[in-house]
């Protein structure tokens, strides 16, 4: 067993860290949790920075040259992503779905034309992608998707509605799950399309969320004509491709989240030193010290679990249902950590960003609220536990679900 980078990997990491120091956007302030007022500005900043990464030779490390990648291994990609997560997560956020879901889906399930057309423009920052799975009646029950795609000549005609579509309002394309055959069992009638968000009939309406921002959207489709070349795989394979996509989202995610949270722990320690409760620094209180240590433990467990999982991927495994562990290990601890951080602040925890009494620019206030979505997005905790229970431990489906899926 060896938990270290090789000397070559370590040299690459150092090289990238020093490149990054010189290439962060001008005026970008790492002490602020949010540098951009609008989502348009934020998306622009992401695209510009992705272009810079690409020009520097650091985009899509583990993808082949033919599709715009660097032809290296997953390790180099992990090193880049970890470094970015701890240095400038904000600049990556608008591209999370793009890189975590759209890229692996197109690469592993798309045809050669689709790969050559779409991947290079993702890697060089030209395009942001969103993901259209959820619908008002297809939340955890994703297979209940009812957005219809009817084939007419060389087009699919789309009608329906998606919801909770992150970054749809700044996206150029969407990976979308649609129903092409309403007459077969529900999983079997789904297909996977690549949707150009600029097509006539696509309407995006932002949904204001608990943080007061609108990261999510409703996406309405009315007689949207999608060329048949935009079908991924075959008709009826949508469910299988979607499941694969969801698992890919998790592998790099775990390794990256730990790096992002490492930075949060450093902030938490800083806060505990500088903020007083009843006249003494938080860091001197034995109960808060326990919470601080538990936060550190949670993140360290996530980190080494993520590395162990990654290592097994590197040995040739494909992402499996075990990935659900990682999802639970980052989402639930993040809620505990942000809750504890607010608990440490006492009454001041109510003050958001923008006051002389704000602590750390309201980082933890935003984090606390945003973390409430962590156990819902990308498959709720309940769905993760179903996946582990049924697909890893081999426990039976409950009678009602088993009967429906016969």
């Amino acid at each position: 067993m060896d938990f270290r980078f090789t000397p070559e990997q370590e040299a690459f990491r150092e090289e990238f860290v020093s490149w990054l120091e010189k290439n962060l956007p001008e005026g970008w302030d790492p002490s602020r949790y949010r540098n951009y007022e609008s989502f348009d500005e934020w998306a622009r900043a992401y695209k510009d920075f992705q272009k810079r990464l690409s020009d520097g030779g650091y985009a899509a490390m583990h993808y082949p040259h033919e599709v715009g990648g660097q032809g290296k291994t997953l390790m180099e990609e992990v090193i880049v992503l970890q470094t970015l997560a701890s240095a400038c997560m904000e600049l990556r956020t608008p591209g999370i779905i793009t890189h975590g879901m759209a890229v692996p889906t197109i690469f592993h399930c798309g045809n050669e034309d689709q790969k050559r057309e779409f991947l290079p423009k993702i890697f060089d920052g030209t395009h942001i992608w969103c993901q259209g799975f959820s619908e008002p009646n297809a939340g955890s029950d994703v297979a209940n998707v009812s957005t219809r795609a009817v084939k007419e000549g060389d087009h699919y005609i789309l009608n329906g509605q998606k919801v909770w579509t992150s970054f749809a309002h700044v996206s150029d394309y969407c990976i979308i799950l649609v129903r092409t055959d309403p007459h077969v069992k529900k999983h079997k009638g789904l297909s996977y399309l690549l949707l150009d968000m600029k097509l006539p009939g696509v309407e995006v309406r932002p949904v204001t969320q608990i943080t007061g921002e609108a990261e999510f959207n409703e996406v309405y489709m009315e007689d949207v004509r999608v060329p048949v070349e935009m079908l991924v795989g075959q008709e009826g394979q949508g469910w299988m491709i979607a499941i694969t996509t969801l698992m890919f989202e998790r592998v790099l995610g775990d390794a990256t989240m730990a790096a992002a949270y490492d930075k949060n722990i450093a902030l938490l320690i800083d806060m505990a030193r500088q903020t007083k409760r009843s006249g003494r620094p938080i860091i001197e209180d034995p109960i808060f010290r326990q919470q601080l240590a538990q936060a550190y433990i949670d993140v360290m467990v996530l980190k080494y679990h993520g590395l162990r999982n990654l290592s097994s991927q590197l040995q040739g495994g494909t992402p499996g249902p075990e990935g659900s562990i990682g999802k639970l290990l980052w989402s639930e601890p993040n809620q505990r950590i942000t809750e504890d951080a607010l608990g440490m602040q006492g009454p001041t925890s109510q003050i958001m960003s923008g006051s002389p009494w704000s602590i750390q620019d309201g980082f933890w206030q935003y984090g606390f609220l945003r973390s409430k979505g962590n156990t819902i997005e990308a498959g709720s905790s309940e769905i993760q536990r179903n996946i582990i229970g049924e697909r890893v431990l081999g426990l039976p489906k409950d009678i009602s679900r088993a009967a429906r899926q016969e």
Partner: protein
Amino acid sequence: MDIKFNEDQIEIARQARRFCENESPMDYVRDMFEDERGFKDDIWTKMVEMGWTAICIPEAYGGLEMELLDLAVVLEEMGRAVIPGPFFSTVLLAAEAIKEAGSDAQKEQYLAGIAAGEIKGTLALYEPDGGADPGYIQMDASTDGDGFTLNGTKLFVPDAHVADFLVCAARTEAGNDPAQGITLFIVDPKTEGISVSLLPTMDGTRKLCAVEFKGTKVSQEGILGEPNNGWASLKRVLQRAQVGLCAESVGGAQRAMEIATEYAKIRIQFDQPIGAFQAIKHRCAQMFVEVESARSILYYAAWAQDHEDAKAAEIAASVAKSHCSDVYRNTSASCLQVLGGTGFSWEHDIHLYIKRAKANEVALGDPVYHREQVAQLIAG
């Protein structure tokens, strides 16, 4: 980066699994739970023949000179089988203390003896008011220039009743820094002035003793390591032993998860296996999440002992001890809930796991202690 067992470790784990199934079935565990001595010599001899007592002992003293991770592979399987007996006390406490602080002559005598399976030892550390912090050592050791006289009581000394020697931590100098002034002694428990008594503890598979010292004489040759500086050595010994306990805990938690999952598949209520109900399914899934997360941090902490710098290794040991303790306690308790009334019975094995989980949780620093250690190490 390569985070998986190598061929040797896979083989060690396979052999250990087979050994535990054949030589230490639950009938044996239950017999030893009730037995005062707590193990049978022929099982001990077979463990020695497997090479287990020699894994981390240097080749120069007849050992295999392997890494803590290799030993953790065996300990995980032993924990899975809640194996009784003085393996942990001898191999992870006594041998590590001698290895860390012993003179050549002491190593020749004790390490070679342990590797060959001829002697057993333990560590006398905790005291009645010690709390969670094993650094709190007050037992008096005074000198008249020729050797020392020990007076005081040691508690929770594992397997002292069957040990051939004790490594005992005592205070030889008082001062402001409690970590200073501690000296380690090697003591024969048959020495005049020592009385050993078994404590009626919850976990009968890990015997704990009270050891009372009344004017016990120890010669100069009995001093282990540098006088007054015993804590520096002990600290490293304890870290390795903490990681060893984590391995046992992960193995035990793994078994508890399996017991719960197997039962959830066959127990029918409301016309279906109870594992079909999300109330049960999610409980089992949570056990799996916790066990796998504990295993990940265990492997890192064990590897770190032999490959990372001192501070990183110390942090990893405390993080792992806190997490694995919590996980074993939660998982074994959760298993009982899945088993329902059956799990509450003496007849079902899960109580043995719940009791070992509790013993491992509080041994060598409980989670509260280790979280405070982590806080000190990361934030001062």
